[in-house]
């Protein structure tokens, strides 16, 4: 499909062809951003109905852990960007090393997240405890699932290490990064 579409796009160049990576990844990224955006919008909407309850519930969160996790994930994103650059320079092993480092930081993120969830569980806080926690578990849980999926993707693009493939995988990883950077202040910090 790719060769043919390039030849046909020669006659009518499309803005879509200028996208880095693959069009389908951008469809996925936009869909994900819509879902998380809608989730955060709903969170803020419900928060208006019960600001005190939401603030009280928020005080149970492990803010330092989440702050540390932000640092971990942004660093991981930086390493993934370096991997993409190395791939374009044709340095296969450097690309793989960077992807591995990025993925390992993803694992660190999940471990810290696990500690956080375990703490909630120990306090007896579940999905149905309060609307705040329904959103907390849905949004951070859904995000954590994307981290797991993203680690798998980084593994796959590291295995099939072509510049374009790496670019597609790293684009997904940056989306996971971006979503966390949006979730963190709204869920953990917003008063």
């Amino acid at each position: 499909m790719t060769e043919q579409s390039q030849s046909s796009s020669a006659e009518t160049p499309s803005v879509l062809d200028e996208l880095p990576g693959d069009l389908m990844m951008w469809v996925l990224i936009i869909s994900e951003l819509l879902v998380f955006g809608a989730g955060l919008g709903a969170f803020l909407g419900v928060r208006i109905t019960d600001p005190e309850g939401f603030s009280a519930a928020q005080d149970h969160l492990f803010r330092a852990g989440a702050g540390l996790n932000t640092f971990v994930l942004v660093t991981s994103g930086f390493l993934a960007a370096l991997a993409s650059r190395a791939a374009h320079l044709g340095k296969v092993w450097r690309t793989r090393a960077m992807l591995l480092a990025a993925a390992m930081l993803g694992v660190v993120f999940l471990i810290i997240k696990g500690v956080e969830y375990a703490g909630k569980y120990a306090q007896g806080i579940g999905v149905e405890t309060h609307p705040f926690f329904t959103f907390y578990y849905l949004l951070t849980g859904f995000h954590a699932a994307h981290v797991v999926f993203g680690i798998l993707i980084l593994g796959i693009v590291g295995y099939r290490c072509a510049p374009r493939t790496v670019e597609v995988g790293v684009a997904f990883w940056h989306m996971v990064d971006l979503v966390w950077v949006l979730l963190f202040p709204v869920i953990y910090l917003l008063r």
Partner: protein
Amino acid sequence: MKYQSQKIALAYFSVAMALFALQVSFGLIMGWIYVDGNFLTDILPFNIVRMLHTNSLIVWLLLGFFGAAYYLVPEEAEREIHSTKLAYLQLAIFVIGALGAVLTYSFNLFEGNFLLGKEGREFLEQPRWVKAGIVVAALIFLYNVSMTVLKGRKTAITNILLLGLWGLSLLFLFAFYNPGNLALDKQYWWYVVHLWVEGTWELVMAAILGYLMLKLTGVDREVVEKWLYVIVAAALFSGILGTGHHYYWIGTPGYWQWIGSVFSSLEVVPFFAMMAFAFVMVWKGRRDHPNKAALLWSLGCATLAFFGAGVWGFLHTLHGVNYYTHGTQITAAHGHLAFFGAYVSLNLAIISYAMPVLKGRDPYNQVLNMASFWLMSSGMVFMTVTLTFAGALQTHLQRVNGEAFMEVQDQLWIFYAMRFGSGVAVVLGAILFIYSVMVPRREVIAAGPVEQARIDAEHIAAE
């Protein structure tokens, strides 16, 4: 016709049209029961007519999909269908199963029998032997079409079509699982009902629409494929977790309200994309295909599907709204326009496209066919608007004011009377459509000199 085995589609489309006539007739009877509640209560109770109306709809749509597959797969794979005999055997099983279901429902035969009696689950009430027959027929179909595609050319259209058809067949297996717990029953039940029409059927729709656009507009295959992949991705992304919008009030945990609301809101995206796709393809098209009726149905399908499934679906998909509107006439309004727009029109589009070729009469009787489009579509849109008003009023009287169900129904009478009128228009439109594709051999209006010159210059005659 390029391949002899495409002729199989003619048999499928003919049976589908017969069931279509039956389906809308049952609809009309039910429409009158809404007006006069005692109509036929003893011989044909409302719940039985409803089963016949919905079941025959699903079966004829499926037969249309099978027919469409048998018509387009040879052209896409560039070879004859693996086995013509199996294809007719599959149809025979479907016909016997459909007749068996109609007789069992109508006369309430074998009540309570494990194998022969109806099962009593809404929409999945078919007797077990019919369900088993459906599975056997589906296996024959999948084997037949997959063998054809595997040995022939593989295109995005056939890949997506097969993905949809395999998916819908596998999901049907949940029809056999009937847990005693009603909440669990409903949870699995939606695996069939929702994951069909808001998942796998959308793939079938995208594939058939893609095929029609390819043929009718002559746009490059790569362009069509790119659109198809985006549409399919959007459909699966939103549709699978969108199942959550059925889990609001059946006893599932509360977080489904947010999962369902967020994902099902996005279900409008693939339908919007399909509408955009159809119009952009026509806009960019290089071919002025003379089969204008097929083009009209294709564009009508994409547009009415966007409104019926997309807009009318979104209307009551958020759980805060659905809390009030659940199970009112709003649902009926959405159900009618969504099924008509997305799947009825899709079938009528491919039938309008294929029939002239199958019957060896080059584009014929466009005028009657197009008249049937406008009659049926305006009837259906009028019905949708009527039911939406009825639903809004019902929601207020019943759910806000707390009046009793039957008291409210009495106050909705005027809407039901108007709905019956629109139902008559739909039935007349359906009869006109069936007549126009099955009977006449001549054009109703002969082409004028300009149109005739264009047809002579550009049109490739049906073989």
